[in-house]
């Protein structure tokens, strides 16, 4: 039966890949240890990650204005002022004075607890309302707003005002306005230090490693003559694709857990979703990259060219796929590129699950684009590998 033959051949190819991989210590070290370690540690060190002893917000002068004066708002004040991230947080009684101080550069941020804060928190048990606090920041200091917002969000998300008041604020909402000559920009929802790092690292580690393993691996097979040996056998080319895919999915799984382990243990990342969801998304990104890798290798690209292409791929994704800048913030041609790159949707899904905690299955658009692009890339690669079989074998 052809289907059974394809299956058994795929298993044989995957086993062959494992055997070779196991023998090649440098490949094991680079693929499973160095790449995840390098990206995770460099990202963690670069961000001075949440939970580390270093805090980027600890020494920023900020003011806390409590207009609610309830147990919940007092507990929040105690939580923030007692933390290692808000050493210079002081209290002010008047909101307008505090905002004026922002304009005079006395403070760089004002946290305002509006009236009704506790009531809304209590009410959120039975309805979907969300308590709000307002954050004013000095927009003249680039980078400050996102740091303060990120750190504050981390605390607010984990804030439990009392045993009686069970629900915690699930999402920080900021307002936009112009007060006292200081422009307050709504930055959108921002997230704690290393969670956003996790989304970037998981994606980049998979793309970086998988692309080389697939495209580079096939180029090497072609250059060494083993590709010709394989296609001279009665094996269908789909078995080769499936076998290599199965092998790389296992490596990708190991890498996902390595990055997650490092991110959570070393840098106290706190994903707002289950490990299974992260794994599925990580493997979907790996599959998209594999499809791209097969496509590139079908074009008879040499090993050196694969390495160069890999850097271009990663740089392009950094620029246009929402890894560094939310794709919603891109405009013009950049937005068009971002919206036409299937990887953008994968990164978007990664953020929505890891950062906001959205259920994976609710992200229908992202999932549809990802699955469609995987199927498309694989079918296209298969057709190209068959079409260019002659060129690849010589």
């Amino acid at each position, binding site marked *: 039966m052809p289907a059974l033959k394809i299956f058994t051949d795929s298993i*044989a190819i995957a086993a*062959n890949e494992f055997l070779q991989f196991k*023998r090649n210590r440098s490949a094991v070290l680079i693929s499973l240890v160095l790449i995840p370690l390098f990206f995770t540690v460099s990202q963690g060190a670069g961000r001075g990650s949440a939970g580390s002893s270093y805090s980027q917000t600890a020494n920023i002068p900020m003011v806390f204005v409590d207009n609610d004066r309830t147990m919940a708002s007092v507990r929040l004040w105690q939580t923030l002022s007692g933390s290692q991230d808000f050493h210079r947080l002081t209290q002010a009684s008047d909101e307008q004075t505090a905002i004026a101080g922002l304009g005079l550069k006395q403070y760089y941020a004002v946290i305002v607890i509006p009236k009704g804060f506790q009531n809304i928190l209590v009410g959120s048990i039975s309805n979907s309302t969300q308590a709000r606090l307002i954050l004013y920041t000095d927009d003249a200091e680039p980078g400050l707003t996102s740091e303060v917002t990120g750190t504050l969000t981390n605390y607010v998300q984990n804030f439990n005002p009392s045993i009686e008041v069970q629900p915690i604020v699930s999402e920080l909402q900021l307002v936009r306005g112009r007060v006292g000559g200081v422009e307050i920009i709504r930055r959108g929802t921002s997230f704690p230090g290393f969670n956003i790092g996790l989304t970037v690292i998981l994606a980049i580690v998979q793309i970086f490693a998988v692309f080389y393993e697939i495209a580079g691996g096939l180029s090497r097979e072609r250059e060494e003559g*083993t590709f*010709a040996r394989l296609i*001279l056998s009665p094996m269908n080319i789909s078995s080769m694709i499936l076998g290599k895919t199965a092998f790389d999915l296992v490596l990708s799984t190991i890498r996902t857990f390595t990055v997650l382990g490092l991110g959570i243990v070393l840098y106290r990342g706190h994903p707002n979703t289950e490990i299974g969801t992260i794994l599925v998304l990580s493997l979907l990104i790996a599959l998209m990259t594999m499809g791209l890798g097969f496509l590139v290798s079908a074009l008879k690209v040499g090993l050196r060219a694969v390495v160069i292409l890999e850097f271009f791929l990663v740089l392009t994704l950094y620029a246009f796929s929402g890894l560094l800048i939310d794709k919603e913030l891109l405009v013009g041609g950049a937005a068009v590129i971002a919206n036409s790159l299937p990887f953008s949707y994968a990164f978007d899904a990664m953020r929505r699950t890891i950062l906001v905690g959205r259920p994976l299955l609710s992200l229908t658009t992202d999932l549809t684009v990802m699955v469609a692009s995987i199927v498309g890339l694989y079918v296209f690669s298969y057709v190209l590998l068959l079409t260019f079989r*002659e060129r690849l074998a010589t």
Partner: protein
Amino acid sequence: MTEAAVITTKDLTKTFGHFTAVDGFNLTIEEGELYGLLGPNGAGKTTIVRMLCTLIAPSSGTATVAGYDIREQAAQVRRRIGVVSDGVMLYRDLTIEENLKLFSTLYEIPNEQANARIKELLDMFAFKEKGKRMVKALSTGWTKKAMICAALLHRPSVLFLDEVTAGLDPQSAIALQEFTRNLCDQGVTVIWTTHYMGEPDKICDRIGIMFAGKLVKNGTPEELKHAVNGVTVVEADTPDLSREQLQKVKRKLNLNGTSKLKYEDSKLLITSDHNNDLAEQVATALMDVGAKIRAINTKMPSLEDAFIALTGGEEEIDRFVEAGQK
């Protein structure tokens, strides 16, 4: 196609852009035949092998291998052929046994049969403990033998050996020639491509001489040699011949384009067509330039002589090879 024909080609042609690598190749090879394809580098031998083993598609013409069309029934062809070529290698990071095991799965050989066949092949080539060595740790000779094992694993009816003795030591090359001869005696059809003239002369049933993508002549080694009956070969044992003396001898003999003069290890070898008095002329020329002469003999033309005569002389071959390199 005769009843026992295993390979037939009809006007088989392969072009790469404007370059014609194989031009209207016609051939029939019978079961159990050891057929040698002889030609200089770039003559089109490897391209023919690659077309016949379905690695590349012909630009035009047709061919059947083991009764199957190479275009329409490529999968059936692949199941019945074995290929040993520098472009078709084994996995370097696997042992020979692991390589053979992988390919036995792909060829759907049941486990027990595969193990027995692997053992048989490893014993046949006296691999012993080397069977458990990684391919990258083997010498060129052992690697070639391992490649032959992989090519023979599924008991192919046609075996393509493309420049298989390149890089082998003389003993291994001779052993491989004998082994191949035995395979043919067992009914396997073998196409042996080489640019070493001595090999096909010794072992091949028939030889095809290829030049510039064309099959120039086809026949048994004896037939090819007789085809150049008009060629006279004289060998003179004349030590310490200087460059000037050699040039003078060449001028005195007034050799034409298809003639050849070679001086190596005190032996002066002169090939010329339609010259019955060549030995006498050589003796006179050598004496005229004051050379020492130990002996002068007239020889039968070798396959190399036939090859040179059939392909238009050494200069023509050199021109072709240089053009190919460019």
